[in-house]
């Protein structure tokens, strides 16, 4: 299929359709509303389910219900809406049903603004919902990745019966780039829904989907199973990209939009004679800790750059375990740090680690 100029939000929505999305439940919130709008005309014309819910709380619980019924389902929102959905995430995680969440992050806290941000790193990766769980979190840095990772999110959600979240930001949602769509996959017919799904107890014992386990040992057993699954995901699904790390002695770690901004910083730093490299995590959970630890052994220092006050920074520091200096540069309020303000930070790290 030929490349087309895709806007990020529309690209994510269309990619979900190509991946076999059967039902979408969502609520408008800037800067992701184009996802909902795209699906509002595309899904009905394909005979699939589109429903604008009364709130993000209703959206996520509709997603929960449709997922329990065995359908391929997703919702999309932006930071304040994602906050509202956290309760649902927790239920979905414990019930082990697959669901895809698109989070096009905006400035916070509170109502914040509609400008791009990465302030949801913690609430995505650590999950603000109650109990012990993580979703798979995928952070695209460009439109092609947004498409490919959306498709991957559905496949991973299905494979592990888990939540998979796309953590994009407002700029990725609004920007346009040439990208290629995958072919349209057929929708899974209802009679092929999973054996665990609620499809009516015809000729079998009833299926019960619950997150309630009143006996402590039973709940612990569920938790142990969840943790084993998370370890399996961590072992199999960690993804990242590296730029000029082969000979780097200064490593930058940045994801999403600011990750690609740092690609420019690497080029500019190299032009000035600094041996800079970049690791851009694609999965924020599971986090590429092992690779960062490995690279930390080969560089003088690390610079983490984020559109927040330093959230992924904590995971980088945990990976590095204090063996190298880890500096941080972040902008908040919906501001994207530009190469000309990041480069001096890298030069400072260079100077500080030379002595």
């Amino acid at each position: 299929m030929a490349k087309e100029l895709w806007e990020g939000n529309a690209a994510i929505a269309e990619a979900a359709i190509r991946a076999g999305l059967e039902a979408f439940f969502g609520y408008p919130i800037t800067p992701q509303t184009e996802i909902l709008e795209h699906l509002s005309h595309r899904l009905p014309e394909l005979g699939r389910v589109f429903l604008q819910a009364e709130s993000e709380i209703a959206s996520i619980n509709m997603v929960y219900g449709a997922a329990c019924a065995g359908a391929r389902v997703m919702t999309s929102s932006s930071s304040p809406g994602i906050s509202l959905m956290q309760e649902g995430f927790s239920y979905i995680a414990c019930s082990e049903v697959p669901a895809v969440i698109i989070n096009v992050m905006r400035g916070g806290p509170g109502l914040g603004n509609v400008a791009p941000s990465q302030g949801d790193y913690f609430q995505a990766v650590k999950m603000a919902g109650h109990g012990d769980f993580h979703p798979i979190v995928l952070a695209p840095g460009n439109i092609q990745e947004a498409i490919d990772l959306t498709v991957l999110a559905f496949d991973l959600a299905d494979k592990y019966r888990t939540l998979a979240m796309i953590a994009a930001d407002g700029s990725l949602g609004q920007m346009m780039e040439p990208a290629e769509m995958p072919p349209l996959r057929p929708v899974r017919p209802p009679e092929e829904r999973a054996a665990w799904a609620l499809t009516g107890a015809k000729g079998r014992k009833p299926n019960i989907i619950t997150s309630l386990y009143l006996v402590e040992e039973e709940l612990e057993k569920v938790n142990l199973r969840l943790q084993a699954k998370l370890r399996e995901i961590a072992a199999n699904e960690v993804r990242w990209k590296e730029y000029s790390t082969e000979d780097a002695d200064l490593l930058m770690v940045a994801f999403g939009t600011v990750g690609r901004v740092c690609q420019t910083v690497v080029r500019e730093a190299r032009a000035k004679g600094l041996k800079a490299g970049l690791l851009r995590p694609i999965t924020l959970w599971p986090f590429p800790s092992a690779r960062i630890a490995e690279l930390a052994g080969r560089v003088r220092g690390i610079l983490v750059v984020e559109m927040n006050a330093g959230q992924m920074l904590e995971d980088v520091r945990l990976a590095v375990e204090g063996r190298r200096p880890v500096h941080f540069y972040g902008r908040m309020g919906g501001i994207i740090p530009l190469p000309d303000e990041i480069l001096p930070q890298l030069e400072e790290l260079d100077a500080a680690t030379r002595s």
Partner: protein
Amino acid sequence: MEEIIISGFGGQGTLFAGQVLAYAAMDADFHVTWIPSYGPEMRGGKARCTVIISDQEIGSPLVRRPSAAIVMNIPSFETFEPMVKPGGVLVVNQSLVPHRSQREDIRALYVPATELATDMGNMRVANMVCLGALVQALGILPLEALEQALDRHLAERHRKWLSLNKEALRKGAEFA
């Protein structure tokens, strides 16, 4: 690599002009990014976009100092005239911006775009007039590439304006 900012009021078609440029660059097999920046209002606010055209993978989709800019109103002139990189191009919509650049290290083109567009029958093609001037001055793409981009990508409901848009591009190119 060209890093272009197109800025003006909402409703002046700055975002669309950037998209036409992005389509043309894509069709010519360049790497390209287009990223908007909206004001809080849908209309009447400031509307600008950044288009980056490159022959290698694009990192940052945003720049502080563009290599070229189209400024379609006074606030845009005040913001971006000082920011254009030395050797860069600045296209000024003279109809709405009475200022002159004092810089000698950039090439400034003064185009009475809104007047020309009005004379052509629709003031809304002022954006194409400016874009024609810019592309002609940069030389990164032939004017025909933009016309083809309009042919291929102009939304169905705007088809009736196709030839007017093309005419506006050519009219602007005369100023470069």
